[in-house]
């Protein structure tokens, strides 16, 4: 049969065992099409509801489309973008997004997840199960519920201040004075489990002999971590950082429930800014331009992530 046509034949190709098909070259083409048929529902769905909106996003980012009372939007070129970079609220949102991402994803979730995973390697089973269960529960809860729980936690009359009071430490109205810190902690609370699971899997794959050999050689805990463990799980670290960052960039519900982006924009990250421009200010075109920027940043991370996985596809 023609299963060995150039380009199609790779190592491991099954030759004679494919389902029976009518022979000949036209047969091959028809067979390829027939084989690809099951992919089509997925492709149609993806084109209509994912690729479509992305293309539409690119188009209306260059228009002055508004929510109401406008007969026809018109093409405005890069106006939305130049406007954004002069808009202090936008620059504020960019800065807060950066703070939020670095604090909660790069530092918080990633480090805490690694710390928990490596402690779990050594801890006793009941403690490991208990902690794992609690941390994962925080992750599985719906976003809005997590938002409410942490809203209650950080409120002036909430649990955090009660604990601080009990420890005789100064209390604060966290959601008012340091909202970005509060929402960052909320994101750490909610997202650490993912890093913990990824790192637990990675650490389990390190052969026992390696760490034991280092121990025999007298390497201290920190040195072992730095010189042996971290280099061995570096691929997991890369993957985890990428996915955490992408997830953090698109957090909306958590912040919306806790602070609505306020007070006066002090916790307004880019998704919330985008929403406000598009719906509170009715500037769909401007909001979409911001969305496009967010999408570009996301795609950039996505490409890096693909490079990390390159060998595996």
């Amino acid at each position, binding site marked *: 049969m023609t299963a060995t046509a150039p380009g199609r034949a790779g190592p491991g190709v099954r030759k004679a065992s494919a389902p029976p098909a009518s022979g000949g070259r036209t047969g091959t083409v028809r067979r390829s099409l027939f084989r690809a048929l*099951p992919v089509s529902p997925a492709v149609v769905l993806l084109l209509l509801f994912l690729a479509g909106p992305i293309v539409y996003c690119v188009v209306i980012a260059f228009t002055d489309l508004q929510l109401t009372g406008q007969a026809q939007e018109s093409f405005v070129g890069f106006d939305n973008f130049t406007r954004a970079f002069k808009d202090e609220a936008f620059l504020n949102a960019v800065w807060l997004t950066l703070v939020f991402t670095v604090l909660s994803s790069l530092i918080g979730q990633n480090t805490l997840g690694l710390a928990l995973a490596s402690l779990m390697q050594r801890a006793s089973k009941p403690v490991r199960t208990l902690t794992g269960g609690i941390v994962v529960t925080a992750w599985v809860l*719906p976003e809005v519920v997590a938002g409410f729980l942490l809203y*209650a936690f950080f409120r002036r009359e909430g649990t955090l201040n009660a604990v601080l009071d009990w420890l005789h430490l100064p209390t604060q109205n966290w959601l008012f004075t340091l909202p970005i810190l509060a929402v960052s902690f909320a994101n750490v609370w909610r997202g650490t489990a993912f890093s913990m699971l990824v790192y637990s899997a990675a650490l389990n794959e390190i052969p026992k002999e390696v760490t034991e050999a280092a121990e025999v050689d007298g390497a201290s805990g920190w040195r072992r971590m730095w010189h042996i463990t971290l280099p061995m799980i570096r691929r997991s670290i890369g993957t985890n950082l990428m996915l955490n960052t992408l997830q953090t960039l698109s957090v909306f519900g958590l912040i919306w429930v806790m602070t609505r982006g306020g007070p006066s924009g002090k916790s307004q990250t880019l998704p919330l800014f985008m929403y406000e421009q598009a719906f509170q200010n009715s500037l769909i075109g401007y909001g979409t331009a911001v969305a496009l920027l967010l*999408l570009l940043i996301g795609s950039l991370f996505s490409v890096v992530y693909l490079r990390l996985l390159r060998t595996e596809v």
Partner: protein
Amino acid sequence: MTDTLTPRPSTRTVRRTTPASRRNRRRAAADAGLLVAAAAFVLPLAWVVLSALDPHASLRVKVPDGVTLDNFDAVLTPEITFTPLLNSLILCGGATLLTVVCAALAAYPLSRFRSRLNRPFLLTILFATSLPITAIMVPVYALFVRVNMIDTMQGTIFFFAASQLPFAIWLMKNFMDGVPKELEEAAWTDGASSFQSLLRIVLPLMGPGVAVVTVFSFVMMWGNFFVPFMLLLSPDQMPASVSINDFFGNRGMVAYGQLAAFSIVYSTPVVLLYVLISRRLGGGFALGGAVKG
């Protein structure tokens, strides 16, 4: 050295040899560290459980003034709980079904047949898994208004399915790769079509994989707030993820006990589903591995 000879941590004997006591000390330190973290993580969770049972719930964790189910009684009405939950079920159930069927169909040729389109297709899929869906919601809203699909369940279901599909295809393909081809080849020589062998041989053999994709898609959608928040408008269509905000918005005084009770009712299904599949797959959840490739 002797380290490798001493029994594994399960031992109960505390021998006074140096490595063993060092190991015990280290384990105690690790336990202590984990317990501190657990205590910090559990506080917000404790609030929701205690407040739901408390007749006078406030915003802080405290021992309830008495245990009551009044809060549950108050929220378990058609208007507050059952309609939103039913909406969630229709929305997430429909979209999950669509996702899983499309993903299984798409994964089959990708896993079984070689084609020069496989690699670019998979790369595109993988690229799409990591796009921030939040970012395209404004244009999706504008598009849905234009094509008259705004505020419709089916429109939201289609979008949900499309947004979850890349990851579902990727997971499904990886699970499917784990089913040996030889089993199907026997069926092929007996004249079974590839659709038959997918349905009768491959999918039954990758039952746990299909379960993971299904549960994962469902859990992601069940908790998603932004998509229905943007694409649905009429209150009677709202799923629980959006309607929960009414406790703050419209009812003036916030009844924290009721909010907590509703949160528990709304969260329980996904927590249970998660426990179900994580048990089946042995704790670690295949997701960690699946995400790595």
